[in-house]
């Protein structure tokens, strides 16, 4: 499924959440809001991961071993014995990277030299959205986050803005949702 489809799903869930809250069906509203937030993040994860995959298709010697490790989300280890003793090598072991780090890497490497401005309004919104997603995806018994209509909308819009920002920086063009 493409990131556009996840965005469309998130939008549909957001609409349902609005309708449910308006009609007083809070349980359904909460369900749809949570799902919309999660789908928004699936969209941005899908977009960023696919973009990383584009670079893993390139000839290997275009990147350092650590860059390749980040791009392919594989661990890099230092070999202390054997033919490659004293060298870093890429292993088959999965090592998932944080979404923020992948975005920072893509912008720094392919965005024409400018790093992400972490003080910017967009990045602040993104961090708030990420916190909400993390609390939804990793719930605790003494903490029950309930996204509001406004909060759900902000996550959806922020995710779209982040996708657009990365697309413009790396590809030089906007995407269509």
């Amino acid at each position, binding site marked *: 499924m493409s990131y556009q489809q996840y965005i469309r799903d998130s939008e549909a869930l957001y609409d349902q959440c609005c309708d449910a809250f308006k009609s007083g069906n809070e349980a359904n509203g909460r369900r749809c809001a949570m799902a919309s937030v999660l789908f928004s993040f699936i969209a941005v994860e899908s*977009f960023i991961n696919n973009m990383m995959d584009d670079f893993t298709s390139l000839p290997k010697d275009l990147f350092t071993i650590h860059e390749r490790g980040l791009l392919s989300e594989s661990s890099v280890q230092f070999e202390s014995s054997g033919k490659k003793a004293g060298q870093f090598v890429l292993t088959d072991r999965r090592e998932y990277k944080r979404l923020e780090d992948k975005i920072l890497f893509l912008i720094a490497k392919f965005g024409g030299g400018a790093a992400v401005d972490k003080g910017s309004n967009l990045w602040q919104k993104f961090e708030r959205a990420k916190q909400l997603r993390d609390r939804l995806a990793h719930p605790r018994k003494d903490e029950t986050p309930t996204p509001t209509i406004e909060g759900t909308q902000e996550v959806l819009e922020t995710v779209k803005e982040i996708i657009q920002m990365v697309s413009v920086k790396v590809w030089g063009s906007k995407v269509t949702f």
Partner: protein
Amino acid sequence: MKITFDEYATENQEVLQAVQNFVDSLDCLEKKKDSQIFIHQDGVKKSYYIRCCLSGETISNRIDLDARLDPQSTDTFRDNRELLLTHNTFRRMSHDADNEREFNDIIAEYNIGYSPEKPLKIWGGQHRSRAIQDAYRKKNVTRYHGFRIYFCLTKEQRSELALVSNTNIAVSNDLFDRQLEETMIGPHLRDWCVEVGLLGQNEDFPDVGSRSDKITTQGARSFVVNFFKGKDKGDQVNPDKLDYNIYEPYLCKSGVVLDEEYQKLIDEKAGTLWSDAKLKEAGIAFSSLHHAQYEAIKQSKHNTKSFRMKALTPAILSSWSYVAGLLQSHPARFKNHLTVPPSARGAPDPLNAYEMSKYKHDQDLPTYRGIGTRSDLKERQRIAQIFLARSLAEGTPIDKSLISKAVSTVIGLKAMSKGYVA
């Protein structure tokens, strides 16, 4: 009756004599009423013509609808488009002619150099002429119709006249291409296509490519141009860095002006182009791919024209040929490229048209309809990368993974070329 040049026309005795011969041999209204005939001269191409009225009876057996751009050639290939006798517009025209409609501005050339029994070679208004002919033959209907009749045309003037006359009606660029090819280059491209198997014996390029199962003039030109463009590029690229570049296959322009890259190639390689052994080898291999694709799809459940003709789509044809040229100094990869790809698992055809049609990258617009359906540069770059990647190993099928990796490579390389920070 009096025949005179108008004040803008340069007097020319040969033309005057030809007009006189025309008047002597064909009965026009001006002759019957003993009125004036003016000889005009076109300002652009300097061709001479007269305007006159001819009756349905007079023209019924004196017009030639198979006019030739090159009267010296004995070829019987048609320069005009096929008559669409079952088309509703023609039926209406025919009905009107039967009911004494008078038509005007039919474009003809007076030429007795071939088929002298039919001296009026029709360049514009074939359908009207045929309707007039039919009305007289079937219903004895005869009225006066307006003609523009050209005299003593050079090959270039004739070619331009054919093109200009045909812009009055909905004519495809494929017909323009075919006419220009025949006039300005000759039959070489057609002969070459027959030799490599892209056209059958006595076949010609189609006048409307979208309705045909044959290679178009534009397609054949693009194939030839791309082979040499790829070869030139291959000579410039470090052999070790062949897979580090985005390649730009070219699509020859179609229409009233001969494509400049094709013209340049013809000028540069005069005398050697059509006998180039490597080009021929590539042409034969590509023809095999096209026929394998065509037959495989014909026998499959996805028997659609777009899948059958996948190899001949502009983006695939130009990219395949470009890569064939590019791999000239890489014999092993060239050999891999020339072989018809084995079908990927579950796919009936070598090009895996179904998988191509499903492919979509995150960068693509929602309206994108898969690999090979468009012919823009982006599409040609992607397909060139698919063929280049396939050439790396013998017997590689075109599957989802190969397509995806190749497109990712193009997009990744583009992003890197934009500004990679080491």
